């Protein structure tokens, strides 16, 4: 039987826990769970992503109660939600902007992992599960975007599904199979709706695996060194519950700003025009969080090769733990990688800008350079820097680094002597 330290546990809970140690598990994983004492606010984004997934599922279920998945009715049913359903506008705007927030959080979460080497031994599977979640999120977001059946919904569906026609010989058959017909139409909308409802629960399942893998070795930390004992850790509750709650509130302020004051800022005005198969919009542009992939896709003159690179840019992330040859996790102790990391950040923003603009002139050139750099970064620089770079000496332990930083006045900045600026 799991040993619980719940002081005043009622007899009922003890009776249940003896047979089903659920409370004991929560006690162990959410209360005592030893967490590196030097985690910075960059470690808030994991729990934020989890909360955002729940927000999306809850708002999504209530929207599904009012939405009609039919090519002739979908657009109007979304408008009915906006106008006539009590608080429908809030549900819909929260869901719509929630997708953007979810991606922003996950991207920051991933860049944090890249900066602090969170994917390295023994957390390779943790990282890989994260990439699986990202892929599922992209699929879910894409299909969700199709549901309002506006102009951009329809044409995004057409463009993206058509990517599969680049596959030699059977490409066109696959596209017809995906559509459930010979164009994007009602069967496409129906299956996208079914899958859009299904996939979040699969994401939820993968998130659970992600958490199991996380709790096996615990969080990485800004120093990138292992926890060696109780002096390096703090119990998750109350230290990190309160820190996460504060971060959550700040995040909700930003999220609320978009929902209440700029609900359509991140969207495309074209999607308030009903889908019209006879009229192509001037610029078909995906949502901002897919722009970098779109830029890579368009940077290659050959369709098949463009598709391979666009998909490859994500699948590449699966092997990142083995591309990085450096034994040191945190970029704080990697004098070269510390700077190269920011090149990748700039590169991804450049790709985003390229994806947002029509492919003419300078945009094309920047797109091709940025695409090239993206792959060079992972396939060439990652293995090379790991081999050539001379990392700085690592602190003996987390506790030592915390004490060294001047009485540990600010735990968030533990290890500050080594941090830049």
């Amino acid at each position: 039987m799991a040993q619980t330290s719940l002081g005043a546990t009622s007899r009922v809970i003890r009776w249940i826990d003896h047979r089903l140690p659920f409370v004991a598990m929560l006690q162990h994983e959410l209360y005592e769970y030893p967490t590196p004492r030097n985690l910075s606010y960059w470690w808030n984004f994991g729990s934020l992503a989890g909360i955002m997934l729940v927000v999306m599922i809850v708002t999504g279920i209530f929207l599904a109660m009012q939405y009609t998945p039919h090519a002739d009715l979908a657009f109007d049913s979304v408008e009915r939600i906006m106008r006539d359903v009590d608080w429908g506008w809030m549900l819909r705007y929260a869901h719509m902007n929630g997708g953007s927030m979810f991606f922003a959080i996950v991207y920051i979460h991933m860049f944090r992992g890249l900066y602090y080497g969170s994917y390295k031994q023994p957390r390779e599977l943790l990282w890989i599960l994260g990439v699986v979640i990202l892929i599922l999120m992209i699929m879910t977001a894409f299909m969700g975007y199709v549901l309002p059946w506006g102009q951009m919904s329809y044409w995004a569906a057409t463009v993206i599904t058509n990517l599969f026609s680049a596959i030699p010989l059977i490409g066109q058959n696959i596209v017809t199979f995906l559509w459930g017909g010979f164009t994007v139409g009602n069967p496409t909308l129906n299956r996208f709706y079914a899958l859009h409802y299904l996939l979040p629960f699969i994401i939820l399942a993968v998130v659970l695996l992600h958490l199991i893998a996380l709790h096996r070795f615990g969080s990485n930390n800004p120093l990138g060194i292992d926890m060696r004992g109780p002096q390096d850790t703090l119990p998750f509750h109350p230290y990190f519950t309160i820190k996460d709650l504060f971060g959550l509130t700040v995040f909700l302020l930003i999220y609320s700003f978009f929902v209440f004051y700029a609900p359509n800022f991140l969207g495309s005005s074209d999607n308030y025009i009903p889908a019209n198969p006879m009229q192509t919009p001037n610029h078909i542009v995906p949502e901002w969080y897919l722009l970098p992939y779109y830029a890579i896709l368009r940077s290659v003159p050959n369709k098949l090769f463009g598709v391979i690179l666009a998909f490859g840019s994500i699948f590449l992330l699966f092997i990142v733990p083995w591309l990085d040859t450096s034994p040191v996790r945190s970029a704080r102790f990697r004098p070269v990688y510390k700077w190269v990391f920011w090149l990748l950040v700039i590169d991804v923003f450049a790709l985003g800008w390229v994806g947002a603009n029509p492919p003419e002139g300078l945009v094309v050139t920047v797109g091709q350079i940025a695409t090239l750099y993206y792959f060079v970064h992972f396939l060439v620089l990652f293995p090379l820097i790991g081999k050539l770079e001379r990392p700085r000496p690592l602190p003996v332990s987390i506790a030592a680094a915390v004490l060294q930083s001047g009485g540990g006045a600010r735990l968030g900045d533990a290890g500050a002597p080594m941090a830049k600026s």
Partner: protein
Amino acid sequence: MERPLLAALALILSALTPLCVRAEATPSPPRQQWSFDGIFGTYDRAGAQRGFQVYKEVCSACHPVKHLFFRDLADLGYSEDEVKAIASTYQVTNEQPNDQGEMYQRPGRPSDPIPGPFPNDQAARSANNGALPPDLSMIVKARDGGPDYVYGILIGYKDPPAGFNLLAGMNYNEYFPGHQIVMPPPLADNAVTYADSTSATVPQMAHDTVTFLTWAAEPNLEPRHRTGFKVMLFLIITAGVFYAAKRKIWATAH
């Protein structure tokens, strides 16, 4: 570590701006002052009612407002009786056939959608030189530039510059992409007579119409702004409380 966090968010936001600024050769329409701007913005009811009058007497000759019902007009400050009176001036086709199985016309009721000028898109095209007059109930949200753009179109009619090849049946509009628009200038001074003795100049009518159309596109803007203010206030206070609690809890951790 708070500052890099904010810097990262600022960076993300600045990277998103290209999404909303689509560079076109057409000049961007002049920015107007709108009553619904800002976090406390509300709809100017008198302006929106005048805008509805312009819509009803001018725009509705070609453009529907598909997503509006007569009952929605109560939002603009019309009383229940006024809404009934407005609805009853329209003839609508009953949704169900009568006992003989025939569709029939009857005066409109507040629960009816506001009927459009044409029975279907084909009829609309045939009456308008092949062009489809777009639905106006979403137009402010469905165009980049929103209210300023729609206002720009309404006041943007000019003589084409020398050498401009204006096609037959088209009109020159400064703010329309490509400048060639099928819609003839919809507004002329005193095209309507305002009941509240506001002078019906073209800019005035355009401003009123856009106020009405913005309400039509976003009827829940006011509750959204009000709720948002309460939510933000609550979150700011909560953030303060959580931050204080965090400081207190972590104070003992060293």
